C-alpha cells in the first residue's frame, strides 16, 4: 500500500509539472524559445491567489480565476515588451532576455511581497479521502490536482486540434511565413499562446502552493526547471509529450525520494532524463526532424 501511496503522490506532483510543462512546450513549439521566465509566472500566480484569498477574502476558486486572468495579461505584456522585438534575433539573445525577465519578476516580487515565506492556504482545505480501511489516504488537494491536470489536458488537446485559434497555433509553429501568407495573424497567435501558457502557470502555482505551502519569490524557479526538464523528456513542442513527461518525472522523483535517497533525488531525475535523451534524442514523443542538405 505504501507503494500505491507513493505512486499517487508521484502522479499528483507530476500533474503539477505537466501543467507547467504544457506552458513551456506550447511557447517552445510556436516561438522556438526556452522561456525561462515561465517558472516565475507560477510564483506570481501563487502570490495573486494568496492575496486574493487572505486579504480580500475571495473564494479560492474565484481567486485562481483572477490569478489566471492577471497572469495571462502578464504573459502578453512580457512577450510584447521583451520577446517580440527579438523575433529575428539569435536564439541565445532571446534566452538571455528570458533569464533577465526571470530575474526581473523574482526581484519585483521580492520588493512587493518581501522574502518572508508565506503560508499558502490550500485551495480545498487539508482533508483527505480514506480508502481500504484507511490504508490508503489521498488528500483532497492530490485528487484535485490530478483531476485538474486531466481536464486541462483534454481541453487543451481539443482546443489545439479543433478550434480556429488552435489550428493557427499549429500553423505558426510549422512555418510562420507560410502561416502569415494564409492570413493568420502571427503576432496575435503568439500572444495568445503566451496568454494560455501563463494562465496554466497560474493554476499550477495555486496547486503547487496548496500541496507544498511555502510561498517565496524563488518558489517558482526549481519547479520551473523541473517542468522544463519534463517538457524535454516528453519531446519539447509536443503537448501529449509534456503531459507524459510531467507525470513520469513526478513519479520518478517521488520514488527516488522514497526508495533511493531524498538528497540524491534530483540527481536521479536528471540522470533518467539523460538516459532517455540518449536512447531517444528528441524525447519520448518528440518527432525527429530529418535534415535535408
Amino acid at each position, binding site marked *: 500500500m505504501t507503494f500505491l501511496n507513493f505512486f499517487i503522490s508521484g502522479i499528483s506532483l507530476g500533474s503539477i509539472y505537466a501543467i507547467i510543462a504544457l506552458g513551456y512546450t506550447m511557447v517552445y513549439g510556436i516561438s522556438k524559445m526556452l522561456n525561462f521566465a515561465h517558472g516565475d509566472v507560477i510564483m506570481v500566480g501563487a502570490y495573486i491567489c494568496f492575496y486574493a484569498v487572505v486579504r480580500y477574502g475571495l473564494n479560492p476558486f474565484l481567486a485562481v480565476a483572477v490569478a489566471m486572468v492577471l497572469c495571462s495579461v502578464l504573459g502578453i505584456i512580457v512577450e510584447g515588451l521583451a520577446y517580440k522585438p527579438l523575433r529575428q*534575433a539569435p536564439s*541565445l*539573445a532571446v534566452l538571455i532576455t528570458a*533569464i533577465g*525577465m526571470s530575474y526581473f519578476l523574482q526581484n519585483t516580487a521580492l520588493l512587493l511581497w518581501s522574502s518572508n515565506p508565506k503560508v499558502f492556504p490550500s485551495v480545498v482545505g487539508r482533508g483527505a479521502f480514506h480508502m481500504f480501511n484507511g490504508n490508503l489516504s489521498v488528500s483532497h488537494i492530490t485528487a484535485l490536482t490530478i483531476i485538474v491536470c486531466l481536464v486541462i489536458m483534454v481541453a487543451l488537446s481539443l482546443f489545439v486540434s479543433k478550434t480556429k485559434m488552435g489550428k493557427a497555433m499549429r500553423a505558426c509553429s510549422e512555418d510562420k511565413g507560410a502561416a502569415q501568407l494564409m492570413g493568420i495573424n502571427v503576432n496575435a497567435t503568439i500572444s495568445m499562446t503566451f496568454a494560455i501558457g501563463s494562465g496554466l502557470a497560474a493554476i499550477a502555482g495555486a496547486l503547487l502552493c496548496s500541496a507544498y505551502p511555502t510561498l517565496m519569490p524563488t518558489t517558482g524557479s526549481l519547479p520551473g526547471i523541473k517542468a522544463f*526538464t519534463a517538457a524535454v523528456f516528453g519531446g519539447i513542442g509536443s503537448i501529449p509529450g509534456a503531459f507524459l513527461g510531467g507525470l513520469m518525472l513526478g513519479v520518478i522523483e517521488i520514488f527516488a525520494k522514497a526508495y533511493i*535517497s531524498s*538528497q540524491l533525488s534530483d540527481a536521479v531525475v*536528471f540522470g533518467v532524463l539523460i538516459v532517455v535523451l540518449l536512447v531517444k534524442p528528441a524525447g519520448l514523443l518528440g518527432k525527429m526532424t530529418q535534415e535535408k*542538405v
Partner: protein
Amino acid sequence: MTMRRLINLKRAEARRIYLTYAIVIAAYIICQVMSSTKFLSSSMRGMLVPICAYMVMAVSLNLVVGILGELSLGHAGFMSVGAFSGVATAILLQGFIPFAPVRLAIAMIVAAVFAAFAGFVIGIPVLRLKGDYLAIVTLAFGEIIKSILNNFYLGVDSQGLHFSMLSDTTRLLPGGKLIIRGPMGISGIQKIATFPAGFILLMIALMIVFNLVNSRSGRAFMAIRDDRIAAESIGLDITKYKMMAFVMSAALAGSAGALFAMNYSTIVANKFDFNTSILILVFVVLGGQGNMLGGIIAAAVLTILPEKLRSFSEYRMLLYAIVLIVMMLATNNAEIKEFLSRLNPFRHKEEA
C-alpha cells in the same frame, strides 16, 4: 610557434589578439598600481580574484558557445569539480609544500585535470545530442554534479584517503581530518589565491584559446559551428573536435574554479548552481559570442556593477535584470547595431 601562427593570420585578427593581450596587461598594471596606492577600496580589492576567475570562465565558455557553437548551461559544474579537487589538493599538500604560490599552481593543475576528466565523461553522451537538447543535458549534468558534491565526504588520515557518499562513513583514525563535509563543503581554506595568480591564469587561458582557435582544430570548430553537415562532408571528425573543445573548456573552468575557491575560507557546492552557469553565459553573450575581449570586459563590468549598485540596496538586482534586458534589446536592434558598427575602428579593414 606562436609567432609564426600569428604572422600567418589575417592582420585584423592578429591585431585583435594583440589588442586583447594589451588591454588585459594594461588593466592588470592599473589595478596593481591602484591597489598599492590604496586608491582601490578594500571591497574592490577583495573582488579582484573572483573577477579574474569569472574572466577565465568567460573565456572558457566562449570556446564552447562562441567558437564551437553549442549552448552549455552547466558550466558551473566544471567550476565546482575544479574548486573541490583543487582545494582538497591544496589542503593535502599543506604539510609538504610550504610555498603558497607553488601549492596554488599545483592545485590549479590538478583541478584542470579533474575537470577535464569530468568534461570527457560528460562529453561522451552530451555531444551526441544537438541544439536545445544538448543544452538541457548540460544543465542536467550541472545539477547532478551539484547533488553529488553536496553528498560527498572525503577525509584523510595516516592510512590514506577515505571517501563516502550520502553520510559520513569514512571512519577516520584518530588524528585524521575530514576535508569535504557533504553539504557543508570545505571550510578552513587558506586563502592563497592572489591577483597576480589570477592574471597569469587569465593570460594562459587566453594564449591557449587563441592558439587553439587559430589552429587547424580551431578552424574545424568554426566550420562545425557554421555548417555541421558541410563540415562532416569534407571529412571532419565532428565528435573528436567537439570533444576537444569541450574538454579544453572544462579544464580551464576547473582551474578557474580552484582559483575562485581559494579566495574564500569556505566553499559549498550550492555556490556553483544553475544561476552561476547562467551568469557566465550572460558574460559570453553580452560580450559577443566568440569575442574573448568582450567576454572579459562583460565579466568585469557585471561583477562590479551589482557591488556599485549596492547603494540602491534592494533595487540592485532589479536594476541588474533591467540592464540585462535592455542590453539584449539594444544590441539586437537593427538601427543601434548599424550605429555601433560605424564606431568600430576595424570595420573597414575587415571588409577590405
